[in-house]
């Protein structure tokens, strides 16, 4: 078996995965620059009818990372976990900046064009971020789960791995968190 040579990112991810919480602050700057660059490029290039696809961005970031840093495959979920948090930050910051000029921040998350009612199809990222903050007050773990699943694109299983809780718990928290957010956004969103 060939083992890929270890890199700083790979090592940090490994440590973090092994439970070393100190590794995270060291990792963030390494990942952040890349994500930010990607997100910026994405936001600059994309056209109005395009909807934001944070999952795709995180994947792209991962692929670039994996290539450059020779990240081992098993670190993937943890990479996404970090990315999720950063991606949320980058996107929401961007949306808030633009929100000064445009009421909804100019970024829409298109959820499902085929079936979702129009009001719910396009969700302001700023509103979502606000609602997510409130949810995190009520249930920090649910906030994390939404971040990982929505901004990081992690599966139920990956989320359970990162948070070290059972997949059943992730699923329950995820389902109910979405309903909570939906209700919260529906209440605050302009008609």
């Amino acid at each position, binding site marked *: 078996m060939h083992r890929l040579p270890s890199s700083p990112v790979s090592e940090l991810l490994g440590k973090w995965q092994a439970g070393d919480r100190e590794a995270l602050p060291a990792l963030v700057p390494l990942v952040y620059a890349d994500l930010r660059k990607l997100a910026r490029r994405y936001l600059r290039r994309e056209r109005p009818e395009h909807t934001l696809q944070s999952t*795709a961005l995180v994947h792209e970031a991962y692929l670039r990372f994996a290539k450059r840093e020779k990240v081992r495959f098993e670190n993937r979920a943890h990479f996404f976990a970090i990315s999720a948090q950063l991606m949320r930050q980058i996107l929401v910051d961007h949306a808030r900046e633009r929100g000064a000029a445009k009421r909804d921040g100019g970024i829409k*998350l*298109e*959820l499902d064009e085929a*079936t979702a009612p129009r009001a719910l199809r396009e969700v302001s990222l700023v509103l979502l971020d606000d609602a997510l903050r409130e949810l995190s007050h009520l249930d920090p773990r649910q906030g994390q789960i*939404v971040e990982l699943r929505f901004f990081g*694109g992690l599966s139920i299983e990956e989320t359970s791995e990162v948070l070290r809780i059972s997949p059943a718990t992730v699923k329950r928290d995820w389902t*109910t968190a979405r*309903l909570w957010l939906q209700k919260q956004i*529906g209440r605050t969103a302009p008609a």
Partner: protein
Amino acid sequence: MTPERWQQIKVVLYDALEIPPEKRSEFLAQVCSKDDELRREVESFLVLGDQEARTTFLESTRTHVTLPAGTKLKDYEVRSLLGVGGMGEVYRAHDPRLLRDVAVKVLPSIFANDPDRLRRFEQEARAAAALNHPNILAIYDLGTTDQGTPYVVSELLDGETLRECLRRGPLSIRKSVDLTLQITSGLGAAHQKGIIHRDLKPENLFLTKDGHLKILDFGLAKLVMNLSSSSPDARTLSRETAAGVVMGTVGYMPPEQVRGLAVDQRSDIFAVGAIVYEMLSGERAFHGETAADTMSAILNRDPVPLSTKNSGIPPAFERVVQRCLEKDPNERFHSVRDVAFALEAISDLPKSHASGEIGVPGKTPSPVRKRILYVGVLAGLILLLGTGFLYYQSKTVPAVSQEWEQVTNFSDSVVSPGLSPDGRMLTFVRGGSTFAASGELYVKMLPHGEPVELTHDRMMKTNPVFSPDGSRIMYSVLPSWDTWVVPVLGGNTQVMLPNASGLSWVDDRHVLFSEIKTGVHMAVVTATQSRTEERDVYVPAKQEGMAHRSYLSPDQKWVLVAEEMDVVGNKPCRLVPFDGSSAGRIVGPKDSECSSAAWSMNGKWMFFSAATNRGYHLWRQKFPDGEPEQITSGPTEEEGIAVAPDSRSLFTSVGLAGGSVWVHDRSGEHRVLFEGQARLMVPQFSSRAVFSPEGSRIFFFGRRNPNEPEDLWYEDLNSGSAERPVPGMTIAHSYDVSPDGKQIVFDSNDAQGVDRLWVASLDRRQPPRLLESEFPETLAVFGPTGGLFFQRQEGDTSYLYRRDLDTGATVRVIPTPIVRLHTISPDGKWIVAEMPVTGDSTTRGLVAYRTDTGATQRICHNLCIVRWTQDGKYVHIALYGKGDSSSDFKTFIVPLRPGQVFPDLPAGGIQSESDLAHFRGVEVVSGFAFPGPDASRYAVSRSTVHRNIYRIPIQ
């Protein structure tokens, strides 16, 4: 709401969601019996949950399967994630059977639930893949994971999607046209088979690093759309595919598709128009704030004129795009070929990669140069090439169309094409000789892979074929006539079967090959791959017959055989029953020499590469009783046939011989002045000299233009004037000049194809005279002291005879049979021939026979050539130049002591070059040096033949 309260609500809410809606009320009444407020809170969430969107809200996460490295999908081993596309994740994986890396796309698992739909998708994907088109992504395999999730295995591409390319801005007109022609080329092939893409967009067009465009995801769109339009799956699908997918790119669909009406090829044309628009302008043809707005634009609005976006776009161009984007399908171009034609007509651009040329992007030759190239190199063969109009009219073009695609580009030559069972890999031998070349075996991924050298032994090879599973290549090695095997991606070569050549596969276990029975008697046999259950299929009637190559029909009932017969040369192809019940019959062009053959996959056509007096070309004949039709012609020669699995094209080695004759003398080397193609005779054929006795004339075969049959010519080395001594007579194998320089003898076939000897005077005062005989006679040489030595065929056996030219009396010179007469020593005492020797197990190879004593001297064990200078002071001995792939022979010019006829050769004959190289004063010449009157002068043929493999479409 407090965190504690939410925890309470959360638990009840989740439990309620888990039970059927009709039972929830009862459940809540029970659980919240003491807390009405809790019940109201939970119900307020359940209301949302009952809406359709509950399943989709924020479900922007991957629900794709994620495969870690090392995961096995059937035989494919996942190596790494390549990317996440609209329709699933794409992995790099390894195919251990074919030792190649592939791309595996894992589709969303929702598709697992509908086997019927999957089957239709599979059909369509396979149908598109079967087009085997360079502009369509090659699909190798489809399968499902253990969880039932479908995946598609395809070729691995290096590059980016057109979407990624367009992010850097609009493209030049030239580049846009080039890419569009590639799109239309691939799309045209698909449409011809009734396959519509339905979801063309920049995301589905892949640009490889070498400038080729590949259309991805044929069949996938239909799979998705069928799902989303039919309830109840629609919701499920939406949920699943919405995950991680931007579904908002509706900008390329035509109005009929937006409306949900039937689509046809004109729908794809609309998408092509939208894509061209975007390539040129950098902006979408149709876009709105939302997907619904975009759809509305497609239905109701015309795009902003291109010329306002980019003033450099010619109006004619704009009209083409507009016509693609007509709302009413009837107003659009009716076929993509029309689009291609229109674009070509206005763009003045040559056909791009779409027509299959190999080219380096950015280094494409100018249209003019390209046309000259065609005219110069392939004129006549491809008269119709390069004109868009005829391309457009291709239905009226005869059997072989004008679009030849050069597949290899070696500066020397490659021969013997062989295709893998899936048609994706090509193997061939590098070297000039189509019979067997002292060069290495190569394999190349089609259409644009780099050729990979598989062997490194300089052995003479021929006839490479893939194993049925495509993992190994079997090839014949000469002169031992063994079959060797090498893994497709290299590794150790080893003998698979000794005394077995021209091997091909009957099925996974059985092979068909040629086996030497005795001497040079080679039969076609079949056996298991371990040589059990062996039986004869075809045994040539004559002991000198060598059935070198055999081709089994797809129904396994018939075998086409290419055989070397009698003394020299190949005979017409033969069709024999596989069960060996008869010797079959001759097929293919009459009086031709057949070097190889093939079948169409449906067994309805037989293909031959066969030589008439106009060189080797391809022929075909309807099985069983059609008329042979010539399908290639012109100045090139086509040899070797590998039919693509779809029978729409074949691969052949196309050679352009630029032969010339050179005379070496004290002042250096001079090319004969003859304008045209010239060659000396084949050295193995009998002749003492190619020079006239006094050395002032040189004899050679030549043709002044490609359409002229080859004639015997001589050129006066002083004046440069050239003459044909026997115009209109076709020399079958050899000629010789009489010692007085006044006559020549030659062999020529009579109307029945039987070798006959003729004598003609060089001054043409008398007509050529036939030397009457009841037997076929060939390979004549003038004896130094008068008389004519030649080879006579009596039944299955050939003997050496001498004829008195005055009386016509003939006498057998050597009592035992010979295989092939080579020459006679200057003193007339030694006859050099290939012949069996009593007590010597080596039956091929050169032997000298002393006419007065009957003594024999073995000269070599394999093919070698011996010729003396006319003064008898030097002997030229040539060995097959294994160490020199540029030329088949290496000649050692060895000085002889007075009275010596041979230098001191090893008693058992020459084994290697070192047996010759040590002679004092020896001179070594590349190629075969035909001796002149004395050591001061010799002649060599320089063949500048270039052979490369082409793909030729066949109807």
